[in-house]
């Protein structure tokens, strides 16, 4: 439980406190400057304060590029507000730049007259050279368009900590908390939750707890005492749906969703996984849940990860595997096996920039066609995608439910932006979650390995250890019902069609598509995955200007909702905004014979609201 305490206030110059409805802060520094921690802490505090928010951590692929260089810049952006927040923000209100490289990489996104806080102690000649700058921007008037606050951050941090007896390096590591303290002052935020976090994280090193607390208070007091900071801001809590909230990232939500699925299905969960950015955190998280009986296995490679999960399902657990694009590619053959033996399996692809190694820490959504079709031969697999970080909880739960009910592998799509981005999440109560208890086959009488349920076309889940149900399954084509190896031409066609029909049957449970915005009109924007935020924001803004626009966001990519075609036909134009070269676009055009248009951004970054608005304006003049 959090309590909001008023921070210490000494004699202070006259202050202006302005109430505004939103702000976007970007913390940028060297990889070693602790910008992710600073950003996460501010996020946590804002969430506890009651703001709606969205975050965008933007870090480099390398563990530690040379200090002060351009590739080493790590950033964290947070958009928080008293109104609905859909995106991390197109333009930045406050930029904290810890060195010239961070400034250079991020200044273009700072609004005119935005607040720019720089650490002058890191703007020496050597630092400028590393950022490939010839002139010092603090001196050449190139930053006149902004409200520049040049702060001797390192010096002031050391001054605040001098009594503690730490070496210079340790003191300097606290300067990110000085910057955090400054931002807390700017937005009138309490420091309690960060105090608690420090106490927990450095519980074995009380000196570091004290050092970081002092640095934070020093940053706060600095703004308080300095006339230059004459204005601070108040962003009141947002009117969120009543309930109990927590901050959540997509990967955490996914992990929690699988624990929930295990409980709701009353079946143990087995995660076979191999470390890969940006999915590794799911493995880390789930390996902590042993008190829920969760079995995690770091396999020797991606193929062992998925095949061990298949083996687990064969033996009666819910097999899960998590990966990113390159890992999905490796798992292809095994996915075909899962389709052929009709066992439950959930495969999570946390998409990132490709092809090949691509951009490991940057987001993209270009694995859709791989998910839909990336197997040899006809191997249809249901595909689901989350729209927000919190939605990943639903994704895990629903993918698990479908996998079990239809005895089928399911692909669950997320992406780097959702995985690492955070938002406030209304915590469900376990009593409100759907129950889908597993029933394993027990009765030998009339048992056949491929005898199908009339409604779902699922075969029975008959696990080893069950007397009387001994049977063999495998990847070779089999006779329907008996499961005996069978190469007959008509049987093969029958089985191919049955496996396709089973996936199609899932559509009977997919709710009808209901567009947000106008149910019919000039334009409908179709999206899937993490473009939900920017599309929503853009559509809201354009509708406020009188345009008639609908927004359809798909969470089921295969099969598609029954009424999707009908819905699309109610609009004059169909626009598909995707972070790929037009993959859903191709699927919709082929299936519905609709002349849909694409808006395609493949830059390793989410769409800006303005980019989508510009396209809308272009299409509806």
């Amino acid at each position, binding site marked *: *439980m*959090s309590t909001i305490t008023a921070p210490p206030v000494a004699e202070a110059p006259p202050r202006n406190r302005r109430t505004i409805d939103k702000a976007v802060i970007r913390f940028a520094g060297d990889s070693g400057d602790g910008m992710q921690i600073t950003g996460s802490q501010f996020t946590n505090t804002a*969430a506890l304060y*009651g703001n709606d928010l969205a975050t965008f951590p933007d870090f480099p692929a390398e563990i530690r590029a040379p200090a002060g260089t351009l590739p080493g810049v790590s950033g964290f952006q947070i958009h928080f507000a008293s109104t609905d927040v859909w995106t991390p923000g197109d333009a930045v209100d406050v930029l904290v730049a810890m060195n010239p490289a961070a400034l250079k990489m991020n200044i273009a996104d700072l609004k005119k007259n935005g607040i720019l806080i720089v650490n002058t102690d890191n703007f020496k000649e050597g630092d400028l050279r590393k950022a490939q700058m010839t002139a010092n921007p603090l001196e050449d008037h190139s930053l006149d368009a902004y409200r520049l606050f040049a702060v001797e951050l390192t010096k002031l941090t050391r001054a605040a900590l001098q009594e503690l007896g730490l070496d210079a390096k340790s003191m300097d590591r606290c300067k990110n908390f000085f910057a955090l303290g400054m931002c807390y002052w700017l937005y009138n935020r309490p420091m309690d*939750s960060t105090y608690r976090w420090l106490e927990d994280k450095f519980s074995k090193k009380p000196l570091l707890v004290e050092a970081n607390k002092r640095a934070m208070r020093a940053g706060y007091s600095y703004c308080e005492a300095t006339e230059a900071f004459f204005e601070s801001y108040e962003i009141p809590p947002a009117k969120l*749906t*009543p*309930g*109990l*909230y*927590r*901050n959540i990232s997509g990967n955490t939500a996914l992990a*929690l969703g699988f*624990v*929930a699925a295990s409980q709701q299905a009353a079946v*143990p969960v*087995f995660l*076979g996984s191999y470390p890969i950015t940006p999915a590794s955190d799911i493995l880390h998280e789930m390996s902590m849940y*042993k*008190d*829920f*009986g969760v*079995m995690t296995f770091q*396999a*020797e490679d991606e*193929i*062992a990860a998925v*095949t*061990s*999960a*298949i*083996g*687990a*399902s*064969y*033996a*009666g*657990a819910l*097999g899960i595997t998590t990966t990113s694009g390159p890992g999905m590619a490796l798992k292809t*053959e*095994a996915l075909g*096996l899962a389709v052929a033996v009709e066992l439950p399996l959930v495969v999570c692809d946390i998409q990132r920039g490709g092809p090949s190694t691509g951009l490991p820490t940057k987001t993209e959504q270009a694995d859709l066609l791989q998910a839909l079709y990336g197997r040899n031969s006809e191997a249809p697999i249901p595909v689901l995608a989350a729209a927000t970080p919190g939605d990943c909880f639903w994704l895990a739960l629903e993918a698990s439910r479908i996998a079990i009910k239809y005895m089928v592998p399911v692909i669950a799509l997320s992406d780097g932006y959702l995985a690492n981005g955070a938002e406030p999440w*209304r*915590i*469900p*109560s*376990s009593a409100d979650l759907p129950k889908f208890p597993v029933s394993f086959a027990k009765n030998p009488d009339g048992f056949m390995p491929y005898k199908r349920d009339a409604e779902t076309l699922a075969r029975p889940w008959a696990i*080893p*250890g*069950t*007397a009387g*149900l*001994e049977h*063999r*399954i*495998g*990847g*070779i084509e089999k006779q329907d019902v008996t499961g*005996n*190896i069978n190469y007959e031409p008509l049987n093969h066609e029958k089985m191919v069609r049955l496996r396709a029909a089973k996936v199609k049957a899932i559509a009977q449970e997919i709710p009808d598509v209901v567009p947000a915005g106008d149910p019919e009109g000039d334009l409908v924007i179709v999206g899937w995955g993490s473009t939900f935020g920017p599309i929503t924001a853009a559509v809201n803004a354009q509708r406020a200007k009188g345009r008639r626009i609908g927004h359809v966001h798909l969470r089921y990519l295969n099969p598609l909702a029954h009424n999707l075609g009908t819905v699309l036909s109610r609009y004059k134009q169909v626009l598909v905004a995707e972070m790929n070269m037009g993959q859903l676009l191709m699927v919709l055009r082929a299936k519905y014979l609709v002349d849909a248009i694409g808006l395609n951004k493949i830059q390793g970054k989410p769409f800006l609201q303005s980019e989508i608005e510009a396209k809308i304006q272009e299409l509806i003049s």
Partner: protein
Amino acid sequence: MTTAGIPVLTKKDFQTDQEVRWCPGCGDYAILSAVQSVFAELGIPREKFVVVSGIGCSSRLPYYVNTFGFHTIHGRAPAIATGVKMTNPELDVWVATGDGDSLSIGGNHTIHMLRRNLGVKVLMFNNRIYGLTKGQYSPTSELGKKAKSTPFGSLDRPFNPISLAIGAEATFVARSVDVFQPHLRATLKKAAAHKGSAYIEILQNCNIFNDGAWTTLTEKEVRSEHVIELEHGKPLIFGKNRDKGIRRRGLELEIVQVGSGASEADVIVHDETVENPAYSFMISQMEQMPGFPTPIGTFRSVGLPRYEDIARQQVLDVIAKRGKGSLDKLLRAGDTWEVK
């Protein structure tokens, strides 16, 4: 019919109604027969057996054994078996694989399974060829092998499967031969009793694509000169007259005439329980030296916990320490706030 809960099964109980599709004369028939007989003798209920296989002629075995069976994909049986055992450690899991399946595409999974000491018994049917795909050389084919893809002779030295398994520090490594039925059955039974990974190389003849690969070992006249049977606690003696012994000189092995010049006391007494893998590795290398016999039997048998047991135990330990998790508590972990 059972006695005190232990099922009394026969070989017939383990036969399926599926028509066996191996070529007439294939060594796999003999292996199948041994497996079915041994399964019946183990006192394990039929439903507890799981036979997992990869791809190859070897991997057709599950269809002919009347237990739970899973015919998977090329090379991946050990990984599938890992998921099976970690989910239900009480199952008796056997992997049927071949020289290509286990040591070529499956090499990585093989060594990791062995290093983890997963409680599965691996039957690696080694016919030194790729039979199912009709005659390419395999990682155990001899150097210079002329086969479908190597008409001018293969260029790579073969793996020594026993040495490889010992290199991965497998806790039980053995070799037998398809046509040495009593020896094969005894080896299978021994493997069945082993706690942890048991890697058994079974020399198998593919009479269609590599006929005679093992005749120097199996032909009655020369067998005793070319094969040495490893028996724990017994000296390494072979030969028609049982007059040749293996003696160690430094890191090398030498053959000595027992009786003239050397007594039985000089000969190595086989110890399969030596912790240091160097001993069994040395024995496994013997066959590669000119004039030396090929060892069959158990090279190594040491005790270590099974991977699936320590994995399960870790989970139980956490539950014992923390209590069973509460989903609602987990969902509400960390900082939360109420919106009214």
